[in-house]
């Protein structure tokens, strides 16, 4: 017969809290960096879902924001600039039981890695991509990024940015992401909720986070003024409405723009041959006889 007190103790000990997701390494970010808020929201989301650190991989590229894996007690991957999405795709397809988060910056995911983003979205790979958008290249010290506004002057654009800024939410919606949301690093509780929903969503989830660079491009005042929650009756199934909203420039809307149920890539490929056989060399070679 189970000992009731022991069972109670065991479950209490098994409950994971935020500290269980901390690696113990102190983040190397500047004071006031938005990425602290995103990291804390990520810890909270994992704790809310009670995911075992051994079942979670955080994959990142290069940038201030991409340092995140080192601050987590989960498995992690800190790779090269721009390739976190393909790396995460391979992880998820090879090992579907893992929960995979991709974390990175606007440069990592919208510039050097932008060629991978629409494909991950279109394939609907079941991963959660959290992009910390500070509209600058923090790590290389303040050059323009693909989300910098027109006219923005930086050392690499001394006459001002000429290109139109990319719209990450619009980009995700246009390419078939099945969960698209926006958060703000200064609102970590709301962000936690978005990340929880993103992880739970069985498909490609994109969480666009406005995460200011305190050091080189401090936009807290701008966002404090321009953010607006999505209306409480927002229809998350309406793609056209989501696209229209993503096109507005007056306000920066926060919340879940869009959500759709569509079979994920990993689930689909595993249905081609549901009865996976053992590989038998002799049998395989018959096709060459």
């Amino acid at each position, binding site marked *: 017969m189970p000992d009731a007190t022991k069972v109670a103790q065991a479950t209490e000990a098994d409950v994971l809290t935020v500290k269980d997701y901390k690696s113990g390494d102190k983040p190397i970010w500047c004071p006031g960096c938005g990425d602290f808020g995103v990291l804390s929201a990520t810890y909270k989301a994992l704790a809310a879902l009670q995911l075992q650190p*051994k*079942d979670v991989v955080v994959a990142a590229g290069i940038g201030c924001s991409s340092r995140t894996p080192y601050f987590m007690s989960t498995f992690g991957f800190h790779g090269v600039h721009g390739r976190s999405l393909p790396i995460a795709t391979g992880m998820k397809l090879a090992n579907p039981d893992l929960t995979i988060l991709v974390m990175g910056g606007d440069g990592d995911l919208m510039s050097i890695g932008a060629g991978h983003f629409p494909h991950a979205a279109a394939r609907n790979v079941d991963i959660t991509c959290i992009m910390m958008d500070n509209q600058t290249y923090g790590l290389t010290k303040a050059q323009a990024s693909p989300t910098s506004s027109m006219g923005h002057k930086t050392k690499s654009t001394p006459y001002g940015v000429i290109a139109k800024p990319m719209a990450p939410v619009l980009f995700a919606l246009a390419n078939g992401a099945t969960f698209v949301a926006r958060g703000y690093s200064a609102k970590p509780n709301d962000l936690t909720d978005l990340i929880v929903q993103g992880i739970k969503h069985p498909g490609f989830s994109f969480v666009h986070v406005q995460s200011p660079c305190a050091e080189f491009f401090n936009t807290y005042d701008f966002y404090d003024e321009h953010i607006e929650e999505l209306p409480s009756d927002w229809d998350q199934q309406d793609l056209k409405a989501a696209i229209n909203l993503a096109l507005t420039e007056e306000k920066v809307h926060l919340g879940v723009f869009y959500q759709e149920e569509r079979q994920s890539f990993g689930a689909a490929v595993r249905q081609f041959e549901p009865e996976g*056989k053992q590989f038998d060399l002799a049998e395989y070679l018959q096709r060459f006889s």
Partner: protein
Amino acid sequence: MARDDFIIRIGGDTAIGGVISTGENFTTAAARIGFQTFTFRTYPAEIKGGHAWFQVRISNKPIYSIGDGCDILIAFDQEAYELHRPNLNEGGVLIYDSGLVQPDTDSDIICYGVPFQKIAREELEFVRGTNVLILGVMAGLFGLPPASLEEMVKSRYKRRAELMEKNIQALYHGYEYTKKIQKEDKFWLGTADHVARLVMTGNDAITAGALHAGCRYFAGYPITPATDILETMASQLPRFGGVCLQAEDEMASIGSVIGASYAGTKAMTATSGPGFSLMTELMGLASMAEIPIVIVNAQRSGPSTGMPTKLEQSDLFQALYGGHGDFPRIVLAPASVQNCFRISVLAFGLAEKYQCPVILLSDQSLSHRTETIREVDTDVFPVVDRIRPNGTNPEDYLRYQITDNGVSPMAVPGLDPHTYVAPGLEHDERGHPRLTPDTHEKMTAKRFRKLEAARLETDNAELCPRYGAEHADIGIIGWGATQGSIREAVDRALADGLKVAAMHPRVLNPLPEERLKEFIASVDRVLVPEINYQGQFAHHLTATLGVKPIRFNKIGGLPFTPGEIYKKIQEVLVHA
């Protein structure tokens, strides 16, 4: 005396169709009843139209190379006749469509003109049967039992009774037709041993080896001549619980392969030169984060898009030295189709054991030529799995523990509680960033020690075979698909009383230095034939072993023939 080892070449415009398939069908039928075959093919780079040719060397004895020139030329059109006539050996046979080709009359060859298309159209009322009609003529002229071809037609059209009937009719029509031809040539196949053999391309053998080794994830981006590995994996992997991804580009291919392997699944990608260039940054990452991956580079003629359907061995520098920073990688080069299977199994074994990128360098000729194989050998190289941190307390786990052979246990997410971050940054033994001079020196040395350990287990006769005379005037060192031609050239030289030897290492990095040194010491001069302009392997040998070989380079998209190498041997000896 009849010649029972000969080369048939078939040429024509792909717009006519059937050049390659006629050759393939003849080869398969012959191999099924025990003949040994060795094929070679080139494709035009054009989508539609353009000249293609196929060649099969056939015998009832083992054959190792493409051979020299051709003995029998089947010209589908005038262009084929003009292009290949100079390569037709003395006493050779020209078979041509007498309705389409006008050969010169004053020649030292034997000509059989047959109005193939006309017969197909008028007598068989089945134009599409032309190719099978030609097969029937080939069978009748050179002694391939038509029953073997009939078998093949039957299996090909098993579900289309009417087509099967018409094709069999065309086959025998061709066969009977040869009774009207006065046979003047000496080519006649010997008796087959009726032992069933496999007919595989290098790509087939690499893929089979990978599946046998446990590869269950593949990602690739289409590129000639590696595309059919992607296509085979796409159809086969799902059957064995694996996944194949057609990635958006080569960076995504190798990236996802790295991710899959990190997640515990043996994984591979396949590409050719241009794609390999795109992969080099991530190859360095795999080496830094110590993740086992296999990259097949089926070399083609470069640079840039070069001659995309033609062979070259010009990516050796890229494989050995490509990438930024100092990082270990293992480079393997299979020497024949049969060898492709083994080397593919070995590639996974070394990748898993030493947790680093393994590059399998093949080339267009090996990718697409077929050889007959009695059976593949699974006993030479075992299937290997990476070591895991079993038994270690997760708190004490050091993913990048410094060890004697440089290898440290690798945890698998989801299975092992030993979490760690795979780092692109220089790191300490736990895997945490540490960018001090001391750490970089220690960890770089740790990673490179794996190559030393790999060398110890690969510097042997199995992976670096020696052939020919014990002490020789010329020692040939070759690599990759040139092995067969070198071997036959050495045989010829030995038969002529010349003292020649050859060595053909399969592992190009880390080089089997002991065996190579021994070999070099036992010969007067070293000759390195390779299909590139710069003498890339010769350069590598000079850099590594200090030897100054005589270089023998050929480019242009075609393999070495035994005759070319034999001529070079003579030339070197005369000038000695």
